[in-house]
């Protein structure tokens, strides 16, 4: 029975290729297993740092298949997908790794919103007919333009508060910095790490350990998710009478090196 299913699939595949050649489809459309699927729209939205892929079923030559699969590489997981904005999908590994979409009908559109900027390139796709009596699934494969994977990306930027001043320190007490530092971390992978290290440029007679003791850095809670993450950092100086004596007048520059890296 598997043999027979394969033969049917092979004949239908040849037919599909023939139709595809006849129709001279654009590079954005793919006719596989009697279904023509078009990459209807591919657009990056800088304001949101998201990329939208819209696929449209433009033609169904035979019966509607059970589902079709958009091949997706290892770089994309649920973390990279705006699930709320995307058409419902199921991850599958067979007949290829990717997103399976059901409810196929003419002119139906499938939306895929990805965090970050994603180019389009030919990716594998499959059309699957299931539940045909004793036959095994009929699977037809081809290519269609989809998210170009193989590239992970990482960035960090100080979007505000690259230099933050403290009020003039005239006595012991707690001094909050005038503003916060706001960081933007963008990653195609979740689980990234943000670290910081201090370096001091202080008067010669100042006590470095006193500066380290009185300086407080607090990072607002964040989730190291894929996409864009904003992180706010607050600074304060809490100076005791004893510490105050170790901090002579002069210029104090507290350098903070923020390091962003992947979690691997």
């Amino acid at each position, binding site marked *: 029975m598997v043999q027979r299913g394969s033969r049917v699939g092979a004949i239908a595949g040849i037919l599909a290729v023939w139709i595809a050649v006849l129709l001279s489809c654009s590079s954005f459309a793919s006719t596989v297993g009697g279904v023509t699927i078009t990459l209807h729209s591919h657009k990056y*939205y*800088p*304001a*949101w*740092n*998201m990329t939208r892929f819209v696929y449209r079923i433009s033609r169904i030559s035979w019966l509607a298949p059970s589902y079709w699969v958009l091949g997706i590489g290892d770089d994309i997981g649920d973390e990279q997908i*705006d699930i*709320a*904005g*995307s058409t419902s999908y199921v991850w599958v590994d067979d007949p290829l790794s990717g997103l399976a979409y059901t409810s196929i009908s003419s002119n139906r559109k499938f*939306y895929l*919103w990805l965090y970050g900027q994603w180019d389009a390139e030919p990716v594998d796709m499959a059309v699957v007919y299931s539940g045909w009596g004793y036959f095994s699934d009929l699977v037809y494969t081809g290519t269609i333009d989809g998210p170009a994977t193989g*590239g*992970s*990306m*990482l*960035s*960090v*930027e*100080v*979007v505000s*508060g*690259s*230099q*933050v*001043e*403290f009020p*003039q320190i005239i006595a012991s007490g707690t001094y909050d*910095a005038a503003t916060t*530092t706001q*960081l*933007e971390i*963008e*990653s195609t992978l979740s689980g*990234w*790490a943000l*670290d910081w*290290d201090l370096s001091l440029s*202080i008067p*010669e007679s*100042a*006590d*470095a*350990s006193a500066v380290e003791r009185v300086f407080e850095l607090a990072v607002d809670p964040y989730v190291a998710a894929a996409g*864009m993450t904003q992180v706010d950092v607050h600074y304060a*100086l809490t100076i005791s009478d004893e510490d105050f004596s*170790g901090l002579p007048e*002069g*210029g104090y*520059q*507290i*350098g*903070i*090196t*923020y*390091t*962003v*890296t*992947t979690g*691997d």
Partner: protein
Amino acid sequence: MAVGLGLLLCSSIAVQAVRVLPASLSLDQRLGTQETYTLTVLNDTDAAEELLLYVGDWQRLEDGEHDWGMPVNSARWILDRSFAAGETVDIVYAVDLPTGGDVTMEGTFEVSSPQASGVVSGPDRVGSETVGEAASSPAASSDIWIGRLVESVDAAGRATVRLTVQFREACEGLVVYETASERVDFVSIDAADGRFDAINRSNAGWVSLSHDRLVLQPDESRDVTVTVTVPEDASGTYWSAVFVQSQPQASDEAGTRVVSIYRTAIKVYVTASGTEAAEGRVIDVQVGETDPFILYALFENSGNVELVVTGEAQVIDRTGQVIREYAIEEFKVLPGAQRIVTVADATSESALSADIYQAVVSFEYGADSPVVGVRGFRVR
């Protein structure tokens, strides 16, 4: 509607960043080969960006945090305590010299209170020709002096080096670095009750970059070539990071200010193909508290490749019944490194009744069977 919601949630995001692709490099390369790879640096900001690019070392600490403070080819000792005037401290380490040769060594130190820094005195080459060569006498004006003495070099080319620290004045917090001119293995013999760190599996010396500085105009991108040369005697996985760092805005003004520098660390893992050996073991299991129950386990990566580890812990009573069960979240451990894992009861959990128990911790890292550590304990 669903799409609209997705957009609404992200509508406040503005994209202004210097991006680096890919986010990390995990490379398999044959022994004795040289390969080139590409990093793309893209300035997606509205202004020109001046960037520094360099290769550096890093390690992952026992608690999983990164340590970015290790200079390349260095050993570091952190003595986080007070020292009395007149006190002397000895640090002893061994270093495996390159075949038939010696190595240039540069030592520096920092004291946090009172703020001070300096260089280590003594022969700047470590090898058989400098064995026994005394360091110059400490200057009368210096509060802290560190001298290097090469005590011996054995037949296998391992040099034993002693650093003698003399404190003329009381001080607090000492960090000492010894930096070699090339990659060598450092081994601690006596860390003077301080913390010793060395990254003996660094590949920083194998990695070279086509650019050490970039000035990118808005929307400009540049490819940086990363050349990796794997020596013939490599075994397992080695690592470093390529740093892409912004330039801080300098300020000479008085007052107190925070200046932010930001950098992306692109981890570079290089595995010598065909030499991988995945091995791990449980070093220790300790019961910290019994009410609420807290358990510590120390796992060590004794192989030569990074391990991705999951595990579970159980508390078993004398009848063999499992009283408590805990899942241990996945963690990663670099070769030669250790990881402390803590499991604990929720505060709402009822206390263990008075009895004798066994705590069993098992870790899976892809071997045929898990590695297990056991600790018996009594609740009174």
